[in-house]
């Protein structure tokens, strides 16, 4: 098992799936797996989806790294179905998402400077 790293920069670059999962959480929000899948799909208007295999592999990795934390859901889950585990982005997770976003922004800035992207939008 990987040692939880405390330096957000040590996680970069993030895998696409990890980054998307991190962005799916609002601050402090607990979500179960299916809700994360819906949130990822919702962020892109349904263009990008994440499948359960990728999602849970990412969650397992992120939990090991301390980027997300999990707790058992209540016995009588309001949405029905089996008892679920709920996940939340940790402070480290937020920092990692921020570091990745900045890394990507730097890349986007280069693309704008080279006029690959139309500029003016920051």
């Amino acid at each position: 098992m990987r040692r939880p790293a405390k330096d957000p920069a040590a996680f970069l670059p993030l895998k696409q799936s990890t980054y998307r999962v991190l962005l799916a959480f609002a601050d402090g929000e607990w979500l179960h797996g299916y809700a994360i899948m819906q949130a990822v799909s919702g962020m892109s208007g349904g263009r990008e989806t994440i499948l359960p295999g990728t999602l849970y592999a990412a969650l397992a990795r992120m939990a090991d790294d301390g980027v997300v934390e999990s707790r058992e859901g209540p016995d009588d889950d309001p949405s029905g179905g089996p008892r679920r585990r709920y996940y939340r982005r940790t402070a480290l997770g937020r920092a990692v998402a921020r570091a990745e976003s900045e890394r990507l922004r730097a890349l986007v800035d280069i693309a704008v400077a080279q006029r690959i992207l139309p500029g003016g939008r920051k």
Partner: protein
Amino acid sequence: MNPRRAAARLYLLALYAFPREHRARYSAEMLDAFERTHGTHRAAGAWSASRFVVAACIDAVRAGAGERRRRPPYAGGRGPLFSGSIGRDFAHAARSLARARAFTFVCVTSLGIGMGAVFTLLAVVRVLIGSPPGIAPNNLVELLVIPQEELKARVGDWAIDTWSYPDFLNVRDADTGMTVAGWTAGQSILRLPDGAGVRLDTMYASPTYFTVAGASLAQGRGFDSNDSAAEPQVIVSHRLWRTRFASTPDIIGSALVVNGVPHVVVGVTAEGFRGHLALHRPGFQIWLPLAEDPRLAGRDSHRFDRDADWVRVLGRLLPGRSLVEANAVVSSIMAATGRQHAASNRLKTASVEPYFPTGARRRFDTIGEATTLVAGAGIVLLVVCLNLSGMVLVRSAIRERELALRLAIGANRARLIQYLLSEAVVLAIAGGALAAAVAFGTPAVLSWWFQTPVEEAPRVDGTVLAACAAVCFATTFIFGLMPAIRFSRPAVMSALKDEVSGGGRRVGRIHRVTVALQAGIAVPFLVMGGVQLDQARKMATIEPGFEPAELFALPLDLAAVTRRDADPAFVLRSIQSQLERATGVSSVAVANGLPLDFEARHARVVRDGSAESIRAHTTRVSPGFFDAAGIRLLRGRAIGAEDRAGSEPVAVISQALATRLFAEGEPLGKRLTFALESSLGGGDFRWSHVSMPGQEQTFTVIGVTGDLVDAYMGPPAPQLFVPLAQHPSPRVFVIARSSSTRDAMGAAFERAAADFYADADVIRSGLVTGESLLRRSRGELVFGSALGGVAGGVALLLEALGIFGVVAFMVATRTREIGIRIALGASRPRVLGGVLLDAVKVAVPGATGGLLLAFAAAGEIAWASQGAVTPLLYSAAVGTALAVAIVAAFPAARRAASVEPIVAMRSE
């Protein structure tokens, strides 16, 4: 299994790619997320759902492999099921298979044959038991009449799918908890925009038909619910609209001439809709109101006739009503009718059955047929798998040294199994791809080649694809696992110190038995192929029993006569007399069939005072038929003008029937009893699954004709001719013998029929000649022999593969023994002979069994191939099976004979 559960199971299986720890923690949640997402995809259709299942499984396998790489193998636990090395194994398997080209080619081809059979049959079964497009099968029911006592004995089936019109009305108008629609099938003639006429499959249906079937119309509002609409109405199929009317947007409300009468178009069906019957291709083209059916609109209306069963009835349960309720109501209505109209309805009860695509009456038969098809294909695939397993055994035996080396440098057993299985997987995937390409691609290629769209193409949808994938998966395990387990434990020391393998393993009994079985199965097929070949040879010189040259015939539908005031007898008389005046015409007659017309009009004939019945082909003929058709009259007289309706019933029989009924005795003046199929009851026999035999009658034999072959060109078939005047038929052929050309005769027929039919072009296109009948029969026979030949060829090919595998394995594992023999002075030809003899020993028991099977099934073979089975054919078939065994064993035998003793014995 229901698709939802099947998908969940598949996904659970895919989750095995994850490490056990991950599975224990997350698999319930993952399955939950999978099922919920699958649910939303299912709402979007089966295709979307299937794609999602495939994508999710692949995703799980990939992510799981990633997780396994991330986490080190668990100490003390079992090795990972699929370790990260799986990709390497596949790559290695693909490379080594690419090098062993002959082996790969043989394996992929034979897997392709086996899987192709399964795929094709799965697609066929899907067509057979899958609902046709555009209907809503839930809550759709079919109303059947259940015959009782004598009627049941006469019909010989548990249910009748046709109702009399008054009985149908009783059910339709009662409160049954259903919306009920009646329908019948027929043909009608449509005048196209360019003036030409086409004959189209037509459904006459109640206005509620589309509602009941759950089919929506692409355009238009459908039939008026009032039966007697102001002007005649028609609904056209989407296909007809597209192909014949160039998808004109303003078709609704325009007028089409159907059967010579202008109809207003009130609807276009949804795309792909072709009626509610599964097997009906390409489907109905136009729909007319039931009231327009000739049996209601014609002169002899069946509107009030409870004896004439011709309407078929569909129903849709109203919301909240159940099948049981509807059944009870309909049964009680029918029982009440039975008390009221005892003469016609005493022996009929009714039943409401759930809809089935080939008809509710045929449900069990169809399911049985489908099961047989799938089981047959499964057996072929199993045989192929066992063969391949034999081939893979050989390959593994040859590579034993390599495997031992892998074991010696630290591979564990699971790792070796994975390595060996990956080759099987690659082979299965290649075979599956080949099979899929052939099974599903052939229609496309055919349609490209012939430049016509193939309507019969099997439907490839999610279910069929999933089934095919499952077949590939199962195949891999069946043929890959056994050799993989067997060779995952090579004897390291002996394998390594030795240049050649010498394990002295024995060929498994199961392989020998399979190979023997294949040799056995090949024999009856070969006999059958031989009979057909013989038949094809005889066919060139066969005497058909009539004069095909100068024979012309025109099919006429007397119900479709556009002059409503003309009665059928008058129509026929005037067409006949017009034709007789045409140049070159020597005789004209009318009959309800032609020689070699492929129509099954059979009756069981019983001689007076005998219990034995003989099945004979019946034709209703007018005076002059024998002259016109060129059938020789041997004795007695032909059917003449004196055999009118009401006079003594008479019959002319063929020599073959005379011999079977009376042996050497004189048939003239003797009496026969039989029942012709009823022309009123069953209506159009192609559409009524039960042909209703009419009442039995006694006939006097007045003449004997020469023999006639039947449409399948077999030995002369018993034939029976009765006067058309005594037994009228709504569909007839006008037959003329003439020395004129086809065009001239076409024109003559057109002139003769023009008075009664609006669409003269249809007449010209329907013209049949004697030569075309003969050509068609020969074509069928050639096609039949080709099919028999293909089946025999496939059986032989499988046998060859099996023998090749078994013998090669024997040789590969007995190299040292052979080397010692050669060292001791055995000559190489003798070694070669010994190995070939081994092959023959494997094949002989099978071939003997096959011979016995062929003897036992001689009757069926003779019947199926319409020829005689001769001793020569039996010996040829067995000889071929053994010869193939020898040829297949030859490469291995040559290898055995070229063994160098010094190499074989070096380790000693």
